[in-house]
């Protein structure tokens, strides 16, 4: 199915507008229509009832596995733990070679070099959080050093956090410039911008922050750090996917979406895939444009996959923990 079948028309002629001043940015973002919160939540609830069975379920599970950014972001992380995470990302189920690899492993900057050495030149990317993750409360100078550190250690992808304090108090220019500067510091590396939707209060803010990040050059917009009370929610993801679709339709630049935090079950993952397909279109159903930031989700996906094959419910401890 092509994106056109879903009514998504990616612009081919226009380009991303240049933002020259904070007032221009403010005018652009405040001119956006509000989000119908009740409607968004209702639509998510409706889409969550969609039943995916048999062979479609198998391919959805495999697709979801290939979209996982296998993540460990704990103070207690060790090189050994990262090694086992990388091995798992390469070959999620060692007993079944048909299981696809994960998209990436996501670690703190100091462990990037180690992850890189384990993964070598494999298809699994190394992603690193940076810019004073998870709060984002540091000066721009420190944030850029953090990014440069991760990139020079071999990160393919950088997950930055926006300054929510600045965004919520209306200093949009500051947020915008930070993203632009981080994007420049990333060089070749892909930039994922974490909006932390749980702290943005309203869906209107989620839509505006999404546009702001995309205008500033984000390759991905990401829901959450996974470190606050409210993590990724289907409605927030839907609003971000709408923003990514609208952005592609009006500027021609295609931006990916990553949901992270609190996604633990196959059922949740599949309902996100349904939302992606029904909101942005099947073009986004690829690891290049949609990701799950998760750790325990992978085991549940493997368990459900085995359940589909064996016809019996599987023991959770059949798969390695992290």
């Amino acid at each position, binding site marked *: 199915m092509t994106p056109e079948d879903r009514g998504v028309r990616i612009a081919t002629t226009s380009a991303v507008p240049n933002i020259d001043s904070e007032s221009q940015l403010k005018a652009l973002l405040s001119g956006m229509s509000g989000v119908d919160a009740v409607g968004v939540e209702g639509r998510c609830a409706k889409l969550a009832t969609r039943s995916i069975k048999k062979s479609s379920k198998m391919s959805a599970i495999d697709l979801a596995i290939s979209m996982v950014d296998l993540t460990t972001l704990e103070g207690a992380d060790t090189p050994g733990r990262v090694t086992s995470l990388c091995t798992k990302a390469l070959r999620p189920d060692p007993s079944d070679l048909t299981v696809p690899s994960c998209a990436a492993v996501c670690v703190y900057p100091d462990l990037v070099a180690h992850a890189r050495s384990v993964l070598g030149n494999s298809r699994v990317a190394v992603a690193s959080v940076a810019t004073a993750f998870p709060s984002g409360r540091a000066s721009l100078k420190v944030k850029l050093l953090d990014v440069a550190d991760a990139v020079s250690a071999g990160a393919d992808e950088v997950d930055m956090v926006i300054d929510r304090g600045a965004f919520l108090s209306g200093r949009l220019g500051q947020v915008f410039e930070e993203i632009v500067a981080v994007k420049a510091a990333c060089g070749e590396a892909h930039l994922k911008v974490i909006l932390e939707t749980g702290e943005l209060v309203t869906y209107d803010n989620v839509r505006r922050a999404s546009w702001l990040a995309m205008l500033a050059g984000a390759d991905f917009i990401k829901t959450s750090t996974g470190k606050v009370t409210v993590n990724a929610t289907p409605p927030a993801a839907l609003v971000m996917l709408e923003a990514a679709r609208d952005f592609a339709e009006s500027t021609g630049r295609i931006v990916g979406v990553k949901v992270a935090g609190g996604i633990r079950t196959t059922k949740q993952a599949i309902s996100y895939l349904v939302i992606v397909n029904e909101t942005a279109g099947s073009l986004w159903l690829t690891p290049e444009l949609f990701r799950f930031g998760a750790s325990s989700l992978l085991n549940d996906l493997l368990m459900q996959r085995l359940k589909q094959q064996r*016809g*019996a*419910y*599987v*023991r*959770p401890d*059949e798969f390695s923990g992290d």
Partner: protein
Amino acid sequence: MSEERLDVRKTYKLLINGAFPRSESGRSYKVETATGEFLANVAQGSRKDVRDAVVAARGVQQKWWGATPYNRGQVIYRLAEMAESRRAELREHVMLCEGLELEVADRLVSRTIDTMIWYAGWTDKITQVLGGANPVAGPFFNFSLPVPSGVIGIVSSQDSSFEGFVDAALAPIAAGNTVVALASERRPTPAVLLGEMTATSDFPPGVLNVITGVTSELAPVLCAHEDVDGVDLTGVAPEDVDELNVVAAGSIKRVFRLRDVDDDALRRIRAFVETSTVWHTIGQ
């Protein structure tokens, strides 16, 4: 004012993880008394209800086994207290389900409540009776300790709706297992009542889960589930046992089936404990 009052009809629901959901499938079925009159509409559990119950039972098993045996005994004793205070209701259901005279049902309920207290007493005695200190040729203590198998699936007796259910469910629970129990298909209400009583007896949610429904549909799911460590197939029809044995063997489960009621009294406790051997140096 009229003396008439609308009936307050009761819905007999499942017990999963301390909550009383209707079946995930939305189904229910009609249960009749022994004489063929309508008794109740009961939730008809599905394989997903079994799955959810196993997740709940697995989640709480370490906690239940980690509680002191004395504490487990207190919790089961409290269940007996709750049953005692609802004995009129239990007696009525046992009488209707099994087609008994009132006095016979009354004696049966008394005996079953006594069984609960008996199992409450066993929690801190299992180790002494089933375990032991073994003589070894070396400067070591060597102990055999009974430990619970884990999560136990029970296909409860089809005929003995209350006594059979209580005996089958409480024995593994007393030994530190957690239980997913299928109630008798035609006579499920006493088991549902017992489940309701656990909610007021300090049972940690998930220690006992009660699923009502069609045995031939649910028993194979329970036997095939790889995260169930043992099954009690007492309530399975003799002609179906072989097939379920094969399914259970797929994940190397312990399988128990009550054959002779006169087996020794600890048969059900012994059915779902493993023996763990511990070596310890003799210190000077």
